[in-house]
């Protein structure tokens, strides 16, 4: 959302940048620690007319609602299927069946984002929607769940509404809300068998969750059945100086050197490690408090609004500051050139160039850290009552 300007002067930006790049800990305007998320209020199942819905309110007042609707759609049969099987001589019908089951189209999910004050074809909203959809599909697991039989599948429509004005870059909020809505999403139970035209149980109480739960394992806190797999979350991380800051507010993003959207999913092998005995994975996990293996799904750089901020003028090159002399003109031209190359301490200058590989790697590593922010966020979301 580079069009979203923050009205800060170069002096203010410089101050913010300096306080956020303080070592060892940055000083954030709202007093949070670098890895701290904004506190949030969440609820699910708020709209009975949808398959699943969720609402999240961040403490700064931003609020989003996500509704999930599902429709049965006919699966388009790939034309080349027969020719492929004849080519792969060794493939048995069983293998062919298995491969068919794994296939899931990326057009089985449709995501729309509505932000007040922005048109729905605005690049910002389209980019946000694509980013969230990408994370969901990168998993590869989600579309498999939507398969009904060889001929039909569920088409999922995810409508994301930002209720409040966009006070900060809404990506984390929208991602977390989508996560909860998908967790609470339920589909009617299938009664028909095989490749028949699908027939569903009209008893909603018998419906199944898109992300199934393990009935044997109870969550300690509220008696929720433990969710076996979870949809991905997308986190916003930024780097200022040598500091890595999570969930930046709008003003913080205005001085970001690099901003990344990192999508993280859960390793699907969690079920086997939870139930299974003593393989090496389990031992590795025994040392960490969170029994979760995180998987990186996608990374996107976000054009931070800091690139469009006006630069400050150092005193040395400021003609209004130095006494005007006969050679003032030549001097300013000189100064303009030095302004392009040098960075003066305490004078704001918009960051130039792309993100460095080392910085990107550090950001991603910080997200995937065991017991880190992603773990913390997923733990927090697990505590939400899924009705």
């Amino acid at each position, binding site marked *: 959302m580079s069009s979203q300007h923050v009205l800060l002067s170069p002096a203010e930006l410089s101050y913010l940048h300096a306080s956020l790049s303080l070592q060892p800990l940055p000083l954030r305007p709202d007093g949070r620690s670098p890895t701290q998320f904004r506190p949030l209020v969440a609820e699910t199942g708020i709209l009975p*007319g949808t398959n699943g*819905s969720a609402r999240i309110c961040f403490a700064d*007042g931003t609020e989003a*609602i996500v509704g999930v609707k599902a429709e049965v759609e006919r699966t388009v049969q790939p034309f080349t299927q027969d020719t492929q099987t004849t080519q792969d001589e060794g493939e048995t019908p069983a293998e062919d069946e298995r491969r068919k089951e794994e296939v899931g189209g990326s057009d089985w999910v449709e995501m729309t984002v509505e932000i007040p*004050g922005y048109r729905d074809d605005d690049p910002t909203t389209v980019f946000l929607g694509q980013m969230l959809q990408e994370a969901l599909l990168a998993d590869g697991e989600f579309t498999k769940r939507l398969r009904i039989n060889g001929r039909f599948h569920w088409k999922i429509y995810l409508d994301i*509404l930002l209720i409040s004005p966009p006070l900060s870059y809404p990506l984390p909020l929208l991602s977390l809300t989508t996560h909860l809505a998908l967790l609470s999403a339920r589909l009617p139970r299938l009664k028909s068998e095989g490749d028949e035209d699908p027939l569903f149980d009209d008893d909603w109480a018998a419906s199944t969750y898109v992300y199934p739960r393990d009935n044997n394992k109870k969550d300690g806190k509220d008696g929720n059945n433990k969710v076996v797999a979870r949809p991905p979350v997308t986190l916003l991380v930024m780097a200022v100086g040598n500091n890595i800051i999570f969930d930046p507010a709008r003003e913080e993003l205005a001085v970001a050197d690099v901003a990344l959207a990192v999508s993280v999913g859960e390793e699907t092998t969690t079920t086997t490690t939870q139930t299974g005995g003593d393989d090496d994975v389990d031992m590795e996990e025994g040392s960490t408090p969170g029994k979760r293996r995180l998987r990186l799904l996608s990374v996107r750089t976000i054009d931070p609004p800091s690139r469009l901020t006006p630069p400050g003028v150092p005193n040395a090159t400021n003609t209004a500051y130095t006494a005007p002399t006969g050679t003032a003109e030549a001097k300013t031209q000189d100064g303009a050139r030095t302004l392009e190359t040098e960075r003066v301490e305490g004078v704001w200058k918009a960051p130039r160039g792309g993100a460095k590989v080392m910085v990107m790697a550090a950001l991603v590593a910080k997200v995937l850290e065991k017991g880190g922010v992603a773990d913390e966020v997923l733990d927090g979301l697990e505590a939400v009552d899924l009705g």
Partner: protein
Amino acid sequence: MPLDTSSYSLALLRVDGRRWNELRRINAQIRTQAAADGSSYLEMGHTKVMCVVTGPSEPFGPARVGRTGAGAGATAGASGGEAGVVVSIVVAGFSSVDRKRRGRGDKRIQELQSTISSALAASLHTHLFPHSTISISLHVLSQDGSLLAALINAATLACVDAGIPMTDYVAACTAGSTSTYAANDESADPLLDLNHQEEQELPGLTVATLGDSDRVAVLVCESRVQVSRLEGMLAVGVDGCKQVRAILDRVVRDKGRKMVQEGTVQKGVGLEDMEVD
């Protein structure tokens, strides 16, 4: 799904079990959102609407104005001496039974926007805020008839929460008639507060009045109806608006009392004169 009108004449009960003059359950909240200047949430039966008001504030530069002109909302009120009221409605794709996506350029939504915008501009004291904009954004979460009425009520509540001076509540309600345009039966009853099914089958109108008075602020009738039925429908509608106004007023007073008790706001001087108990 044809409405079984014969069963109505037998028991005088509607499809959802109401009598002709009964409203659906109205549940409303104000100040639902901390970041906004004013906000509200309103349920009329299964119609659920959220409203967020920003302003009165300075319009955001030429880019913002251009965007508004491109179809993001409907404006009412002159730009010079009075505040403009910009209404934008977002109908969520999941709000109806079958998912249907409506763009912002949708003519029906544009008409709703301009109706609400002109109705509120007449009630709000816009002359107190020259060169500014009051932007009202409405979100439809669930639809079951009486959409315009619910939107108007929610917008009124949010404007009250935003503290924008206004003449009185603009309370809205729908009314219909049990007979269709073609059937010329004399025993037709007027109906109050139509749900989606009745709205599809029967002639109906939306009416909004200014507070307790009989002054009609909005009157929208989009169906064919015999002119002899109109008076009865209007009378029932206006009566319903008074009931709605009482409900809205109670919501505002309850919230105000709660805020005074919690110490969020100081008890005002004017508040002592009013009956707050």
